[in-house]
């Protein structure tokens, strides 16, 4: 079994693509553990908490935050292969390379304000449990708002991918996935009231702004990971339409 794996690592012409795909899958696993299980940052904390409440939230999740985000500081580089693979998928399409490069740049810059800032700020918050509660609340707000509220990159990035898929003649992705990108882009619009409300369904932890948005995002992510896998299997390194999935690999 392992010798077959080693043979693939050495000789499979698609090994670079598989590396990128596996990096994506592994990253999302780390992300889930770090955000959902360890730090309890997802589902998000309550924006209606007062300064004392925010300070207590930090105390309750002290080790989860520090360890969970240490893991993120180690592995965030894995977002690069994911963006590279998606950019590559657009290069495989019959469209101008500008689409792929746009996506690559957009998503490369997204991680710093959109995710790492939260990790850094919450780490700083948890670092000194005896900090003044008002300061803890300031860090609390900065973290969650920057994470939930960095919308533009994902909005425009999804639209770029959508456009690419709809115009593409090489059938790299099905058209319905192009439309799903529109759904994902719209979640960035739906989340914008989070900048206004401290409670209710439109707050950063609200039923509409977070829970329903998360379902759409979760579906979207699961779908594109699957479609990327199918793309790699179908890849023929040509420039024409991508062939269909071979019968055996379809299941």
């Amino acid at each position: 079994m392992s010798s077959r794996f080693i043979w693939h690592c050495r000789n499979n012409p698609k090994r670079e693509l598989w590396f990128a795909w596996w990096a994506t899958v592994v990253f999302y696993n780390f992300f889930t553990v770090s955000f959902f299980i360890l730090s309890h940052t997802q589902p998000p904390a309550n924006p209606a908490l007062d300064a004392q409440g925010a300070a207590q939230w930090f105390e309750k999740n002290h080790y989860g935050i520090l360890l969970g985000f240490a893991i993120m500081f180690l592995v965030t580089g894995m977002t690069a292969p994911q963006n590279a693979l998606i950019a590559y998928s657009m290069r495989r399409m019959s469209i101008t390379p500008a689409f792929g490069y746009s996506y690559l740049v957009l998503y490369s810059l997204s991680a710093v304000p959109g995710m790492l800032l939260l990790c850094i700020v919450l780490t700083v918050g948890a670092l000194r449990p005896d900090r003044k509660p008002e300061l803890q609340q300031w860090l609390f707000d900065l973290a969650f708002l920057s994470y939930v509220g960095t919308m533009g990159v994902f909005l425009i990035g999804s639209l770029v991918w959508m456009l690419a898929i709809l115009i593409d003649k090489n059938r790299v992705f099905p058209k319905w996935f192009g439309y799903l990108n529109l759904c994902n882009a719209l979640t960035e619009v739906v989340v914008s009231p989070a900048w206004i409300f401290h409670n209710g369904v439109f707050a950063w932890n609200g039923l509409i702004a977070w829970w329903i948005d998360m379902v759409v995002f979760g579906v979207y992510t699961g779908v594109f990971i699957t479609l990327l896998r199918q793309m790699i299997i179908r890849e023929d390194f040509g420039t024409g339409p991508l062939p269909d999935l071979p019968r055996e690999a379809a299941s």
Partner: protein
Amino acid sequence: MTQTARADARVRFVPGQPDMWAFVLFETLVFTSYFVVYLLFRTQHHELYLRAQAGLDLQIGVFNTICLLSSSWAVARCVQASRHGAYRSALTNAFLTVFFGFVFLVSKVLEWARQIRMGNGFTANEFFQHYFFLTSIHCLHLLIGFVVMGVVVYQLLSPKRRSQELVETGATYWHTVDFLWVLIFSLLYVVR
């Protein structure tokens, strides 16, 4: 070419791209979840919602609905005309569709301005949170609809490009915008 053969095969099942129908289904599901949330909170604060709803003018809602229904009728005629090769008529109907959509948009913006002047802004109370959210996100879909109709017009304009599938796909999207409005209208304006 296999591309067109497959496309022809699909035309037999549904008008336009089946992919668009998948999108319609998904968006409808998402909107349904928004409606469920609205209804949930409405039953919890019935009094508040009833009072706030009194601020909405039912007549404007009816006018909006008539606008969009007319636009749907226009886009249906557009598809019919395009099927029979009457591209001039199809184009006219496409422009008519956009016209009705535009009237809807202007009316909505005026209504929002009026509500805000009356003191019922986005943050006024729970009902108006939902009102502005639902109508805004619907208007966004309408604006996207203009882009879609732009694609349809682009297809109809040039004999080389005319793809009946794309025209029907665009029409499907437009009907969805209308359909969603009818649901929003019923929920926000009618159900009291």
